[in-house]
C-alpha cells in the first residue's frame, strides 16, 4: 500500500535468499510467465498498482499489459473469462482481491470453473489458478477479514492450496500453474511480509532461486514434536511455531503440522502425527463449525477414535462475523494466547 516493494529478482542470484512471501509468490509467477507464454495474470489493481497485497509487484513492467491485466470490478465476468481462456488452452491466474468477495462470483467458480472438467467427462481441462487474499488481524471488518477456506474446500472440483512460508509460496504457485486442474491459492495478508502491516519474524524465509514445485496435497511437519499435534495452516502456522518454541522451555514438545493444502488433504500425515502424540489441537482462522477444524478431527476419529487420548480442541473463529474493533477482533482470532491455552488444555 504505502511501500512499493522491489520487483522480483530477474536472473538467478546466489541461492537461497531470504524473501517475503509476497516476493516469493511473484517470483513463482514470473518464472512460469517466462517459461510458458500461455500464462497471464488478471484481476483488480494487479497492473500499475502491483496488487493491493503486492501479489503482482513488478509483473506489469516485466510482462506488459497484455499479460498482466487490470479488470473492471466485474468478478463474475473476469472469473468466467479465466475459465474460458483455460478451456482454450491458456493458463490464467486470476485474482479475487479479497476472498470475502467470493459471493459476487461464486457461481463462476464452483458451478463452472470447478465442474466443467467433470461434466465433460474429462474432455475439457480448466487449468486456472485463482489467487485470493485472506485473513484478518488489522481491523478490516466483517467483509474483509475472512479466511473461508472451509467453504472452498467443501465444494468439489478445485484444489485449495495455502502457503505459510515464502518457499512454499513460490513452490506451490509453480505447482498450481502447472496443474491441469483449477487451483485456489490463498495467501494471508498478514504473512505476505508487507511493509505496512504488522508481521512476525517468520514472514521472511529462505527461498531457492531456481524453479521448483512444492507438491500439492502434502502437509509439512513445520516442527516435529512428541507431545501434542497442532494441525494448522497459513498465518496460524507462524503463531503455532511461536507457541511451540515457548512451551518447549516448559518441557512441552509440540509438533506443528502445516497442511499447506486442504484439497487434497493429507489425511495420512494428520493420522500419523496424532497416532504418535495422542493429542490434537486444530488451529483455524476460518469459522469454527462445518469447516477445516471439524474435518481434521473427523479424519482422526473415522480412522480410529482411540488414537485420541484426550478430547481434541479447536482454536478457531467462533461462529460470528469478524468484529472491527481491535479488542473484539483479537478475541475471536486464533491468537498465540488461545493456541497456548489449548495446548495446555490437552496436556491436562
Amino acid at each position: 500500500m504505502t511501500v512499493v516493494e522491489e520487483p522480483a529478482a530477474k536472473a538467478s542470484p546466489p541461492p537461497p535468499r531470504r524473501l517475503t512471501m509476497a516476493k516469493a509468490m511473484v517470483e513463482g509467477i514470473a518464472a512460469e510467465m517466462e517459461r510458458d507464454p500461455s500464462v497471464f495474470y488478471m484481476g483488480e489493481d494487479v497492473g500499475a498498482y502491483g496488487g493491493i497485497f503486492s501479489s503482482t509487484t513488478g509483473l506489469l513492467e516485466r510482462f506488459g499489459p497484455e499479460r498482466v491485466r487490470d479488470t473492471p470490478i466485474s468478478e463474475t465476468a473476469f472469473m468466467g473469462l479465466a475459465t474460458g481462456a483455460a478451456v482454450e488452452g491458456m493458463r490464467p491466474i486470476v485474482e479475487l482481491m479479497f476472498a470475502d468477495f467470493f459471493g459476487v462470483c461464486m457461481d463462476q467458480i464452483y458451478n463452472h470453473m470447478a465442474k466443467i472438467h467433470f461434466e465433460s467427462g474429462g474432455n475439457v481441462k480448466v487449468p486456472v489458478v485463482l489467487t485470493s487474499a485472506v485473513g484478518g488481524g488489522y481491523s478490516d471488518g466483517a467483509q474483509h477479514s475472512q479466511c473461508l477456506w472451509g467453504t472452498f474446500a467443501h465444494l468439489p472440483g478445485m484444489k485449495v492450496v495455502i502457503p505459510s512460508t515464502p518457499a512454499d509460496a513460490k513452490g506451490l504457485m509453480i505447482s498450481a500453474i502447472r496443474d491441469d486442474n483449477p487451483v485456489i491459492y490463498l495467501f494471508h495478508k498478514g504473512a505476505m511480509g508487507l511493509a505496512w502491516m504488522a508481521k512476525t519474524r517468520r514472514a521472511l524465509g529462505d527461498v531457492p532461486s531456481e524453479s521448483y514445485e512444492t507438491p500439492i496435497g502434502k502437509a509439512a511437519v513445520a516442527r516435529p514434536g512428541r507431545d501434542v499435534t497442532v494441525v494448522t495452516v497459513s498465518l496460524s502456522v507462524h503463531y503455532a511455531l511461536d507457541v511451540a518454541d515457548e512451551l518447549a522451555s516448559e518441557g512441552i514438545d509440540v509438533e506443528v503440522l502445516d497442511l499447506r493444502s486442504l484439497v487434497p488433504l493429507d489425511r495420512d500425515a494428520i493420522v500419523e502425527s496424532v497416532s504418535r502424540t495422542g493429542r490434537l489441537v486444530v488451529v483455524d482462522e476460518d469459522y469454527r463449525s462445518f469447516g477445516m477444524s471439524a474435518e481434521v478431527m473427523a479424519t482422526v476419529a473415522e480412522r480410529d477414535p482411540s488414537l485420541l487420548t484426550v478430547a481434541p480442541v479447536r482454536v478457531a473463529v467462533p461462529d460470528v462475523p469478524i468484529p472491527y474493533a481491535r479488542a473484539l477482533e483479537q478475541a475471536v482470532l486464533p491468537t498465540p494466547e488461545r493456541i497456548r491455552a489449548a495446548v495446555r488444555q490437552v496436556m491436562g
Partner: protein
Amino acid sequence: MAAISQSDHSQSDHSQSDYSEAGRPETGGPLDASVRVDLYRMMVLIRTYEERIRQEYHADKTPGFDIGAGKIPGEMHLAAGQEPVAAGVCPHLRPSDALTATHRPHHLAIAHGVDLAKMTAEIFGRQGGLGHGRGGHMHLFDPAVHFSCSGIVAEGLPPALGQAFAFRHRGTDSVAVAVTGEGGANQGAFHESLNLASLWRLPVVFVIEDNEWGISVSRRASTSVEDNSLRAAANAMPGVRIEDNDVEAVYRAARTAVERARAGHGPSLIEVHTLRLWGHFEGDPQTYRPDLATVEERDPIPSYRRLLVEAGVLDEAGVERIAEEAATKVERAVEFALASPEPDPSTATAYAFE
C-alpha cells in the same frame, strides 16, 4: 420481411469509432437459394431432433409422470420454435469458433456441428456421450467445435469471453458466440459480460433468444426495457432486435456481427424475438400462458417452408427429402445412444481431477 429495430443512439466508445457503421444490419436483396435451403434444412433437423427427444423422454415415464424415470431422466428443455436463431447464426461459424448455449442447448449444438450421436448419448446418460454421461442435457461439451452450455442462467456468457480472449491472444480470427434467453438478460452476469467484452474489444457475438418467457414469468414481468439492444448501447456496442423470428433476418444480422468480431472490431448483440413452442421444460402445464392458442400458428417452420416453396426455391420433393434426411440423422443418433452402455457405477468419481 423482418422488422429490425436498431439502436444507433449509443455513445461510441473511446477507441471504437467504427462502431455505428458495423451495427447497421444488412437488409439487401434475397439470399442465395442454396443458403435458404440450408437454413430450412437445419431448422427441420433441429425440429426433428427435438420431437424425437420429446418422444423418447416421455415414452417410459408413464403411468403418471416421474421425472427421474425412463431412458432420459431429469429436466428437459427443448427448443422447438427457436430454430431460426440457431439456423440463422451458425452458418457464419467455423468449427474453430466457440458457441456457449443455455439450459436449452440442443438447437445451437446441432447447428454448430456438435457430434449428434455423442450428444444424444449424453442426453441418454450413456458412456459414449460427450461427457460419458456425467454432464447430461444441460452440460454438453464438445471441444472439437468449442461448444459448451450451462444450466445457470446467463452464467454461460462469461466463459465465452475467455474463449474469445484466447482466440485473439493466439492471433486467430475465431469468434465466440454467447447465447442467453431474454430472462437471463436481467442477470448481473449479462451486464458484466457486455461491458468487459466491449471494453476489451473481444470477438464476441451476444445472442438473446427472446421467447417472451422465463419459465412462467413473461418478458414484461421481468424486463424493464422493451428492447435489449438498449443494453448493447449501454455498453457501447451495436445491438439489433429482430422482431419476427425470421431466420433470414437472423442470418443477415449474424453475418454482420460475426464479420465485425472477426475483423477485430469487437462485440455486438443480436436479440431475436423467437417462440417457445412447447413448455419451459417437458411436463410444464403452461397454465400461466395466455398466448397458448396462437402458438401453433406462429411456428416458424411451416411459414418458412411455404415461403421457399412459393419462391420456387424448394418443391415438395425437396421438402420430403429434407424431412427424410433429418429423420435418418436423428434415428442414427438415437441408435448410437441406445447402443452405448450405461456408465459403470464404480467409476462415479472418475474425472474428479486430471
